[in-house]
């Protein structure tokens, strides 16, 4: 384990940014935190989490897929892909770090998504352990330990120091990059922080939320539940929950006519949108109830069924905080789970 005094953190950022592009969470004007490219004088946000998740780095909201040039009846295809530059994301929380594994299991299975892979290979993730979890956190429900975050390098921040531990080869490389500022140390302070945080975790409002009632093979049990109508009745059909969710990965492919060619790009899409499954001849998910159900069934049943009982939720709590009508996965789990208990 390595240590750096907190006041030297800016030097560490500067040193990192000399070699690679560095992104850190920083406060925006209106009270939310967001990842931004570091530049001199930028302050790291004190907030627990960024408003958007960190999935943008690997799965950006819009991304060029292919360009076409059209002349008469001829079509030329232009591959716009370029090798991504190396970059470092500093301060990713345990929940977001876990979400990368979930995205990996979608994008990095055969056929591998080369766009995602390109970014993933060039990104180094420095995670930061949580010490002040918020009321909307429930990562422990999905067996995530916020005091021991995954990622290439794990970091812990105490009142006076920041501690680092490399977990992967990429992480070792990063530590080597900034080693001139680091000193080796034992992790006594870190252990103390972990104990304190764990105590707080036990007191969180969702500490007792259990995922056991869900998982693969439960489609029949929940699909027809009468509770969906009640849960979805106030849903506005916006895409807030999906877009702030670190694990939502649905996308749309669209063409844009630039006037001198066609750019085909992909962009985030939301299963909550009415046109998500709309086809020329009809729509299998006609009302908001079906769309709402799809989102949660996917996270709690379909995904675990296809991916060894790993859930497509990391308990980051963003949907809990951001939903305009305060409907969220916790409420769904509690409501449907109750039914199960009966």
């Amino acid at each position: 384990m390595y240590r750096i005094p907190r006041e030297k953190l800016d030097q560490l950022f500067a040193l990192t940014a000399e070699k690679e592009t560095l992104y850190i969470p920083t406060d925006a004007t209106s009270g939310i935190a967001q990842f931004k490219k570091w530049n001199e004088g930028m302050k790291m946000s004190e907030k627990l989490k960024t408003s958007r998740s960190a999935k943008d780095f690997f799965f950006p909201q819009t991304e060029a897929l292919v360009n076409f040039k059209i002349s008469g009846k001829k079509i030329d295809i232009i591959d716009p892909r370029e090798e991504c530059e190396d970059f470092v994301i500093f301060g990713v929380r345990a929940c977001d770090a876990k979400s990368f594994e979930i995205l990996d299991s979608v994008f990095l299975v055969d056929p591998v998504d080369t766009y995602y892979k390109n970014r993933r290979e060039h990104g180094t993730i420095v995670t930061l352990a949580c010490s002040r979890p918020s009321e909307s956190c429930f990562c422990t429900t999905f067996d995530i330990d916020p005091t021991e975050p995954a990622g290439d390098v794990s970091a812990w921040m105490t009142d006076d120091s920041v501690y680092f531990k490399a977990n992967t080869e990429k992480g070792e490389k990063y530590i080597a990059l900034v080693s001139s500022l680091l000193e080796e140390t034992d992790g006594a302070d870190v252990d103390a922080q972990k104990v304190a945080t764990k105590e707080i975790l036990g007191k969180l409002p969702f500490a007792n939320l259990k995922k056991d009632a869900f998982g693969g093979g439960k489609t029949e049990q929940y699909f027809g539940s009468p509770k969906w109508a009640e849960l979805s009745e106030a849903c506005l059909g916006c895409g807030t929950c999906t877009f702030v969710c670190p694990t939502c990965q649905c996308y749309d492919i669209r063409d844009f006519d630039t006037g001198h060619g066609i750019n085909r790009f992909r962009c985030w899409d939301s299963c909550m949108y009415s046109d998500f499954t709309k086809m020329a001849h009809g729509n299998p998910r006609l009302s908001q109830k079906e769309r709402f159900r799809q989102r949660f069934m996917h996270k709690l049943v379909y995904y675990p069924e296809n991916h060894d009982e790993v859930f497509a939720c990391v308990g980051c709590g963003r949907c809990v905080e951001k939903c305009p009508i305060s409907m969220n996965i916790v409420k769904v789990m509690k409501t449907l789970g109750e039914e199960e208990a009966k």
Partner: protein
Amino acid sequence: MNMNLETLIPIVGVVTEVKQDTPDIKNFRVVGRDGKKPIQHMPGQCAMVSIPGVGEAMFSITSSPTNEDYIEFEIKKCGCLTNWLHMIEAGQEITVRGPYGNAFPVDDAFAGHDLLIIAGGVGLAPVRSVINYCRHHRDRYGKIDIVYGSRSKEDLAFYDEIINEWMSPDEKDVHVHLTIDREQENWDGHVGFVPNYVKELGFDTDKIAILCGPPIMIKFTLAGLKEIGFSEQQIYTTLELKMKCGVGKCGRCNVGSKYVCKDGPVFRMDELSELPDEY
């Protein structure tokens, strides 16, 4: 490694022939720029066809894999992209990527069996690939029955091919049963809906049934088949939902935990029954 699966970057296909098959269905013959067949597939598999700037959609490849020269799409005019496709002429380039999805198990589960192929309207497109594949490898299969219905005589897709090839006296043990929805002049064949016709014909149940057509036809034909004694394990069908990526990642074509583009489009009826009714 098939690059266009990994990158979503299509290849250029040249439409060499466009044939008006029925008033609202056209048949498109597509080759690569090199004049050769652009993709290799198995019966039932699909490909993403696109006109850049207009859209991209999944269509089943209706030609048989045994056709070494080109692939064919049978496309009904019903939306934005298909309207455009219906406007193009031979020589126009389009883009294709694929093949996507699974195929009918023509070489395993179907081999050595009698086949009953039931289609309605443009639903003949995916199973035509099966029919022609089986006719090509005629000795691998038993008796082949084809029940095909459409709204009218003019709406019967591949009518010439059916009459001249499938119903040709040289065909061994291939029986085509055509039906149309309503009486019309110069039609002396059967009149009535496909599900009823299937029941009237009353097949023996020692065979495999392949179903494709509008949802309502599938629903009633399925019930009819079960009535005459078919089990769900003997029935195959193919689904179609909105698709964007074709590789099970864009997340919209799922029925329960199965993605139609990746785990389908061909499903055995018993597999399908386990999935929620959302297609």
